[in-house]
């Protein structure tokens, strides 16, 4: 590990330690926060008892569905939009604005239309993630080196072979970045949707525990959600870096 890596670890450990100490010494009221060690033990007990299994499966399942829909349709839409330059020029201002507007504010409208079920949650996940995938697809297709079409002709490759053997691998790193963002965005949107209003799920659990003044449960669940998100994001990020490094950041 690098020097900065060690210092980072030290900083994080020190921060957790300080929090632990502040809670134990009652600098922080136990009605506000419980010591991190208690969060961890509460989480382990809850996980061991299996009481969280349904909600974990449910939330992660919803996220997985939202990501799968976003990636598949985002890629397909990206291909179509890329093939129609005029449509693309017309859509550009919308793409530039999309992540600047609080799309999430539409969640209550979705509930009004589809009722309080999984559908509005999945839709919020897709609505948040799909545009990142479309933009990444367009970006990847833009960056396929023009010389590859010549190479394809030198090797007398057909359209399909060119697409699968040259264009797709050339665009793949950018597509993967789209997948990474889709996962991250869908995660945030699904948890937020559950938090605001949902029949069940990890986000809802935290909100319920808050409403019941059950701090042990609330903090344990919070820790769980943040841990899952961190591990997933870090894993995707590391993979992304490895790909980007192998593929090499090329000029133009």
């Amino acid at each position: 590990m690098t020097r900065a890596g060690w210092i980072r670890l030290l900083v994080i450990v020190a921060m957790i330690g300080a929090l632990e100490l502040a809670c134990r010494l009652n600098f922080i009221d136990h009605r506000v926060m419980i010591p991190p060690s208690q969060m961890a033990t509460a989480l382990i007990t809850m996980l061991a008892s299996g009481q969280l299994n349904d909600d974990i499966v449910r939330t992660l399942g919803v996220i997985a569905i939202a990501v799968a829909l976003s990636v598949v349709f985002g890629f397909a839409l990206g291909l179509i939009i890329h093939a129609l330059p005029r449509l693309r020029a017309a859509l550009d201002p919308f793409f530039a604005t999309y992540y600047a507007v609080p799309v999430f504010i539409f969640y209550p409208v979705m509930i009004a239309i589809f009722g309080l079920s999984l559908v509005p949650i999945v839709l919020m996940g897709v609505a948040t993630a799909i545009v990142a995938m479309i933009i990444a697809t367009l970006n990847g297709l833009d960056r396929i080196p023009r010389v590859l079409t010549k190479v394809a002709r030198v090797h007398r490759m057909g359209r399909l072979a060119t697409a699968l053997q040259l264009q797709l691998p050339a665009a793949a790193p950018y597509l993967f970045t789209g997948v990474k963002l889709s996962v991250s965005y869908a995660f945030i949107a699904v948890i937020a949707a559950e938090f605001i209003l949902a029949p069940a799920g990890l986000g809802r659990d935290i909100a319920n525990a808050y409403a019941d003044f059950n701090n042990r449960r609330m903090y344990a669940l919070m820790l769980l959600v943040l841990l899952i998100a961190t591990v997933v994001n870090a894993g995707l990020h590391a993979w992304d870096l490895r790909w980007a490094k192998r593929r090499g950041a090329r000029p133009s």
Partner: protein
Amino acid sequence: MTAMRRAIDTTIIVIAVVLIWQGLARWVGDTALPGPAPTFSYMTHFVPSARFAENAAATATAFALALLLAYGLGLAIGVWMGAQRLSGEVGEPILITLYSLPKITLYPVILLIFGLTLSGKVVFGAIHGILPVALLTMAAIRNIPLVYLKSARTLRLSPWQAIWNVLLPATIPEVLAGLRIGFTVTLLGVLLAEMFASKDGLGFLIINAMTLLQTKEMITIAVVLFSFAAVANAILLWIEHRLHRRV
């Protein structure tokens, strides 16, 4: 001429969206989703009403304060991490990790600390905004081409002259991009806070409308917020592009 055609194309898309909305409204029924025409007529008398104004003011106050906090702290952290190489290396991955976390899970903690107050909303909004501002400011400072600093020294500029005439103009476009993203996510943070638990604000109003099945009101608020965010973003983007062209 191409700009004209592009404007026409964009208008066509807006019209298409309105038509899809109309079609959806027909399909799911007027109570679940009112069509564009009834919504716009509702908008004309709801937006000028006192109830809307009060809640919009509450959101605006929280948002303005949150933005101030996010910009102040974000810029300070960004400058520090950009100027001090080691703190940047230590801090950057932490900030990136925090940036991609579902921060809504932390809102109960803020509620436990601040209760249902303005401060809670402000802090929660600011938490969202600090991260992109800090990250992009740091990147802006780190990305200053070395040759600029060398030029500043060969021109025998004083430290203040170097900051004012070289460093600031070189970093401003990227810093501004951070401020623009910070604007967006701070607004989202404030609205999420209001949607989850609040006594006032547009986020509160939209959830309230949902429980009362006031779909026209929900869509009106969403459209107003969309328009506000889109226009603000367009202005900030325009400034950014102008500065980019100059640098």
